[in-house]
């Protein structure tokens, strides 16, 4: 069985031309200038970058192409972008700028046909469907949309929706635990495993990474194909200051071996 190196992907949140970081999708903290931060990741030779604008659809905005073009001009690794993409045209404009992948979330829930439309035109490998999951007051995990604020279609459960998006042509799933996001408490291993067991396309686990050990866990125990890091790459430590960095490759190799 051939498995590629697990991809460890910094997931950077964009808001109004600045990079920010959130906790459970709220409490925005300034992290820096997108291009300047990208330069740092270039130097660190990270494998891939993902930019997400989590308030775009909520605020009724479409992708800010100027910022994305500036970012694309700095990067020598694959780039993905999600936020406010609701049509094939939006996707096209993002690809034309130089991004390899687009991610859709609320718009996919609203209009699932968009998944197959983009996949057919650009190939599944260019399309990530982003699934945000939150545990409701009653303890049930449901898919959320619009930056975490609303319940997705019919209060969908993550596994059902994941299977549907795979069937419609998504190349990858970005699975985000809203409850764990920004907490450094570790991934929601059960949630990730349920989804990875149900689909055969790669699942990128997102939300909760606080240490390389967590990364090892979500890959080995929950079978995530890739891991997206948020707080870990923009803060020095939990509760401490902003500092862009990336886990040491030797430490990563150890936990992923």
């Amino acid at each position, binding site marked *: 069985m051939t498995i590629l190196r697990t991809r460890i992907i910094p997931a950077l949140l964009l808001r109004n031309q600045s990079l920010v970081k959130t906790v459970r999708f709220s409490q925005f903290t300034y992290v820096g200038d997108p291009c300047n931060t990208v330069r740092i990741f270039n130097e*660190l030779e990270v494998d891939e970058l993902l930019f997400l604008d989590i308030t775009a659809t909520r605020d009724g905005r479409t992708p800010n192409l100027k910022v994305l073009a500036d970012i694309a001009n700095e990067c020598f690794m694959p780039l993905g972008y999600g936020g406010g993409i609701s049509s094939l045209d939006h996707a096209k404009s993002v690809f034309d700028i130089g991004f390899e992948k687009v991610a859709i979330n609320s718009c996919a829930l609203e209009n699932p046909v968009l998944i197959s439309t983009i996949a057919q035109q650009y190939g599944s490998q260019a399309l990530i469907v982003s699934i945000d999951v939150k545990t409701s007051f009653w303890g049930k995990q449901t898919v959320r949309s619009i930056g975490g604020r609303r319940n997705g279609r019919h209060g969908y459960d993550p596994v059902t929706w994941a299977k549907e998006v795979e069937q419609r042509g998504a190349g990858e799933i970005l699975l985000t635990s809203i409850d764990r996001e920004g907490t450094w408490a570790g991934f929601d291993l059960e949630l990730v495993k349920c989804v990875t067991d149900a689909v055969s396309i790669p699942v990128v686990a997102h939300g909760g990474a606080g240490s390389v050990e967590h990364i090892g866990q979500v890959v080995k125990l929950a079978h995530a194909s890739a891991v997206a890091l948020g707080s870990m790459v923009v803060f020095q430590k939990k509760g401490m200051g902003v500092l862009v960095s990336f886990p040491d490759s030797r430490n990563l190799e150890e936990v992923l071996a």
Partner: protein
Amino acid sequence: MLQTRDINQVELQICTRCIYDERVPSIHFEAEGVCNYCRQVESLIEQYGTGQPKGEALFAGILEDIRRAGHGKRYDCIVGVSGGTDSSYLAHLSKEWGLRPLAVHYDNTWNSAIATMNIHRVLRGLDVDLYTHVVANKEADDIFRAFFLSGVAEIEAATDLGYAYLLRKVAAKYSIKHVLEGHSFVEEGITPLGRNYFDGRYIQAIHQQFGRGRIDTYPLMTFSRFLKSALLGQVKFIRPLWYLKYSKEEAKAYLAEKFDWRYYGGHHLENRMTAFYHSVYLPQKFGSDMRNNTLAARVRNGTLSRARAWAEYNTPPLIEEELVSLFKKRLDLSDEQYENVMHAPPKNWTDYPTYKKRFERLRPLFHMLAKANLVPMSFYLKYCFPAEAPA
């Protein structure tokens, strides 16, 4: 303006001890052709006992104070870090001295990757916590742009002041009474005030006149905030390298070996705005080149010959490719706007509202505060005396 690189052929008067020449603001030449800045350094060495038993004893006393004041607290001192040599080495020293430092960094979003990686590696290696304040990139750029359009030299004023205020704020937040700064007058010299002015009123005035947005995330230190912090905050600013022996070259070597720290090719070039300021803006628009500060200091402390320092000073500075286009792009300046500003006659801080007169009037108060280390001594020396406007 670059002169001939041969120090013996130059027609300007140059200090016989260092390489400051007659163009340096507020310079005068005393006995034996030695400049007042050299005398100032001599007097500071005498006062602080730099690198001698007197200095070590003075500093040992200060260390005691720090430990005592920090007892029972999470951190007993703050170390400002930038990724550069002095601050990185100071972080290391603070651990050697058995202190429990909190590193503080002010991020104006123009850091080079080297600076960020250096901070990361050194602090990780030392296991020191970091506090950062990041100014929203658009806001930081608006302030830079305002300064650029205003025609004055101090494009970094907001960064310098923001950093100074941040140190005070973090000290207050964590009840820390001592801030360690990595400045070394022996390695760097004392910058003449000249075109290097910053205070809260100055920044506000320029931003009001030339800025486009609001000030939200930028930490603005107004006069009252400054005084309040100095009098009530009781935070002491200590510069260990004023008391102790320090060699920048040795520091660099140590940091590289121990932490894989990298040098970025020039004093202060770890931040791209600073790089623009020192290698493009000052030389091209103001004919001013502050490399002489570090070079003169090295001549004084014997690590560089006068002739070689002068030659280096008169060699064009290394400019990172695309630095200027990055500058224009981020600050939303057309080529035309940029050229217009660069060629317009320089303005001076004296053309805009500042607190300068107030600082001068309150000299006795600031003298007292400086003696008690509640404001930096260098602040007192530069701001509380009348200054000549540069030529």
